[in-house]
Structures are given as structure tokens and as C-alpha cells.
């Protein structure tokens, strides 16, 4: 059976369409929503997004493989992204990577066997003043120390967004947990 979007994603796409002069502009959002609904991008889910944006599957596949955050390989439900670019590297990002690897039993770039967590090394997150910087499901954890890794992993395993993120500026912490990428 052909893949479909969830009702929520369908609603988001429908309201987005009016914002752009050309339909094609919703391709990247459509790929993200396909990923949200069906996990890492496959030929089928790329086709789903392609149809939505009115482009060919080949064009959508080209876009899906260009952007680092559109995942075509195995990807976990939660993402731990560790910045390893220069300022974070100087501040000890390698130790953070090692600690997460130890706790999760995987190496950087891999996903846990249960599909819950992916551990990714990423390029500059624009948080160099409070380095090392880590993002958990796109929420910033600044000046992150290896001692904090355990609490992050425990929270994610318990189905909670970890405490201590920068969150939405001036935002309600309860609402922040609902924010998706």
C-alpha cells in the first residue's frame, strides 16, 4: 500500500502550500514530515514528498541526499548531535563523544539497536561561546560536560526530553517539550 502522511502532517502541508508562490518550495518540509511519519527516508517516502511538492522522485532524491539532516540511512527516534568543529573541539567535544559512545554502546554515527537514539557528530552549531555544544532533538545543551551524558540518555530512555536545554527563549518549559524539528 502506498505511504501516506499522518493527519497532523497533512494539515501542516496544506497550510504551508499557501505561503509559497511555487509549490516546489514545500519539498524540504515535505521530506522532513515524511521522515517524521515514516522514519528515515526511503524510496517510497521520498516519492510521497515528491508528489506533494509536484516534482519527480529523482529530483526529490537529489534533495534528500544533499542536506545533512535529511536522513536516508538508519536514524533513531531521538538525535544526539555533538558539535566537533573547532571551538567545541578545543573545549573537549571529543570527551563528550567518548562518554556518549560508552553509555550507548555504539560509535559516533550509529543508532542504538532498539532504534531509540542516534549519535551524530555535526559541524558548527552556532554556539561556540558556550562550548562544547550538544543538541538533543534540536534543543541546545550548552557548555556540555561528559558528566551530563548519563542524565540525557536516561531521560530519552524514559521517554522524556532531558532537562537543562536552552529551549524556547522566554518560553513555557512544558510547551517546549512538544516542539519537534
Amino acid at each position: 500500500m502506498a505511504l501516506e502522511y499522518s493527519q497532523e502532517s497533512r494539515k501542516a502541508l496544506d497550510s504551508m502550500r499557501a505561503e509559497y508562490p511555487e509549490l516546489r518550495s514545500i519539498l524540504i518540509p515535505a521530506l522532513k514530515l515524511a521522515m517524521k511519519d515514516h522514519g528515515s527516508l526511503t524510496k517510497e517516502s521520498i516519492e510521497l514528498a515528491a508528489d506533494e511538492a509536484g516534482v519527480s522522485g529523482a529530483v526529490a532524491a537529489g534533495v534528500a541526499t544533499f542536506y545533512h539532516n535529511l536522513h536516508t540511512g538508519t536514524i533513531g527516534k531521538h538525535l544526539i548531535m555533538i558539535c566537533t568543529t573547532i571551538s567545541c573541539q578545543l573545549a573537549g567535544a571529543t570527551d563528550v563523544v567518548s562518554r556518549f559512545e560508552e553509555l550507548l554502546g555504539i560509535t559516533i554515527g550509529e543508532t542504538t539497536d532498539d532504534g531509540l537514539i542516534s549519535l551524530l557528530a555535526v559541524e558548527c552549531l552556532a554556539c561556540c561561546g558556550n562550548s562544547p555544544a550538544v543538541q538533543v532533538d534540536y534543543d541546545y545543551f550548552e557548555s556540555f560536560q561528559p558528566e551530563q551524558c548519563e542524565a540525557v540518555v536516561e531521560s530519552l530512555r524514559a521517554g522524556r526530553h532531558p532537562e537543562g536545554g536552552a529551549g524556547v527563549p522566554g518560553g513555557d518549559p512544558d510547551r517546549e517539550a512538544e516542539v519537534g524539528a
Partner: protein
Amino acid sequence: MSADVYRGVENREPILMTPEAVEGLVTLEEYRSKGAGYTALEKALKTMTPEEVHEEVKTSNLRGRGGAGFPAGVKWGFAPKDTGKPTYLVCNGDEGEPGTFKDRWLLRQTPHRLVEGVLITSYAIGCNQAFIYLRQEFDREAVRIRSAIEEARESNLLGKDILGSGWDCEITVFMGAGAYICGEETALLNSIEGKRGMPRVRPPFPAIVGLYGCPTIINNVETLSNIPAIINNGGAWYASYGTEKSTGTRLFSVSGRIANPGVYEVEMGVTWSALLDDLCGGPSREKPFKALYPGGSSTPILKASEIDDVIMTHEAAFELGTFLGSGATIVLDEDDDIVDVVLNLATFYKHESCGQCTPCREGCRWMVEILQRIADGLGTMDDLDLLIDVADHICGNTICAFGDGAAGPVATAVKKFRSEFEARVAVSTARGSE
């Protein structure tokens, strides 16, 4: 954030990092009561023509804060009027240049000021639909920007017939998907159009043929955040800050081996020492500074001795063979290994090259290979010249500035710190002869 974030040549008030902004002007109510919120938009719409707004910005000589430093008012003038097509404004919030984190500060602390800057600029250039492009990692910041847009709409500051002026303007937030190159303005336009983020060949410049083939002006978050103050106080007031050619203040993101890293606003023309020693408290590890990337990892490295008594202006940086770039200062001290630093950054560029131009795609890969073997103690003296040769073949041979940004700093580092590279090679030579 400490309170002493601003440093002027004389006793002048900060423009962006006012005490209220440092505390946070997040909601419309806060921005209105403590930040003169939307008074500049009202002034522009009720008392000025678009041409008059444009003229003030030209007078201010505000130069783009994204990296290239091109005068914003001149850029606005490149968009043709009466083409029969819409004109678009795109705010570049794809902050990704290693070392840069000042736009994130502005998005978090003063989201409404950006929205106001986008609206005033749209009015000046005749745009009715603006886009704010944010990197995907600004997910929580985007929530705040979207809230600001909704709050503005509820108060008739955005949407139809804004403040009864008869002028309409919409703002759409577009989220990237993880690609450094999308900070390059034409790659960014392709990304909004749902394409791979590859830079376009110029000409035509985006001011003529930009988003959806229409005239498009692209300005950085910091550039646009300065517009409300310029309209409220006048272009001449803004130009009275700084030097003749480098006017105003700038946000510097300072990181690396520095006692107090963070975002700092300085008036153009203060000395590097005023920023790094007085405001940032000097080195973090009681080791002397060795070197710095003055304006981001794409700007050629400077030895610490080169900035003695030098002031911070575009011209002074240019004389030293480098740039102020995006205002991202990454400081290294005597214990940092230049080979390791250059390898880290070369790896970044290899990862982020869009692959379109051969010299960049292949050259960035080769530079990492050569640097890796030097770092591993397997390099030769010839590798140092080979590295410079590869870098020289990238520079000037690609369709966007990425190639120069990747290669220039590598070549400069090898030239300025050759003895450190030679020492790594000498170790390998000695090992090889054992």
C-alpha cells in the same frame, strides 16, 4: 551574559546590546515598553516614502554583517523597480560559519526587532512577501520568531493594510535542513525553491534574478536588526559611530582560548586589545595568545603579534590580508597545535563543499588527506608546498566564495606557521629513518 558587553571608542550607548536587550525583549509587550518597539516602522510608514527610508540606510553606510561587508543601502538599490514581477526580501539566518553565534543571540533576545527590520526593509524595497531563512538547528529560536510574527499580525503590524497605511506585507519562516553552504545567498535561494543548496553562477545577481526568478534582496539577521535604530535616529546618527568607511557597531562572537567567551558589541574602530583583553578578559589558560581567526574560519589566520595596536575595521583587516567576515573571532593560545586546528577546519570544508565545482570538491578532499598524513606523522616536506599549491588552485576558481574560504586559511596557516608544520614533518622523517 555579563553586563559589560559593549565597548565604544567614546562614551556612546550600544545600539543592539542595550541592557534591556541583554535581559531579553522577547514579547511584543517587552519590546514596546522597553525597546521602542515598532516606533521605527510607524515612523517609516506614516512619515517617510520608501525612497526616504532607503536614503537613510545609504547615509548610515551600514555594511552587511553576514560576511561580505557590502553596503546594505547600495545592495537595495540594485533591485530594479517596475519589472512587473514581485520583489522579495530574504533574511539570511543560516548562521553556520564556524565561530559565529551572534545571530542566534539576536533571534533569542530580540526577535521582534528582526521582524521590524524585515518589515521596514520590505517597505523600502517594495516587497510584499519576505522570507526569514533559519538553519534547522534554530528550531527553538524559530518558535520565538513565529510567535513574534503572530503577535505582530494581531497588532496590525504585519499582514494587510499595516497600521492603516494601505501597505501589505507577509513574512514566511523557512527552515533549512542542515547545509553550511545554504548561508551562501544563492544557495539559500535554491534551498527555498526546494532544490539542492548549490550556489548559482552570477551574473545575473539575485537583486535582478533571485528567488523564483524575481528581484531579491538578501540581508543578514544582524544587518536587518540595525534598521529600526537607523530609522528612529537617522542614518547620520548611525554613521557617527565607528570610522568613516566602517560605520556603526558590530557584534563579535568570541570563542576559543578566551577567559570570557560570548557575544560582544563593539564600535568599529576600537582596538583588538579592547575586545580581547579588556572585554573578554584575555587568555583563558594563562598562556599567551598565539593566533586568531578574526572573522570566522573562512578568514585567513592572524598571528597574535599582528594585531598589536590594530583597530577593528574592514580596511585594517584588509591591510593584514584578512577580513572581519561574520565577526567570529576564534582565539588560539601557545599550547594549541596549528596542524590539528587546520585539519579540523579543513575537515569541516570537505564535509560542507556542495561538490559543484571541481577545484573545491576535489581540492577540499585533497587538503584533508595531506593534512591528515602530516598530523599522523607520515608527511613530507614536499607536502607543505603541495598543500599551498592545492589551496592556490582552489582560490578564485569556483563560482562562490566557499572555495576561497576553505583554501585561503589553509595556505595562510602553512605560510605563517611553517615551522610548526615542518616540525610535524621532521618527526615523521626522523621516524622513517630509524
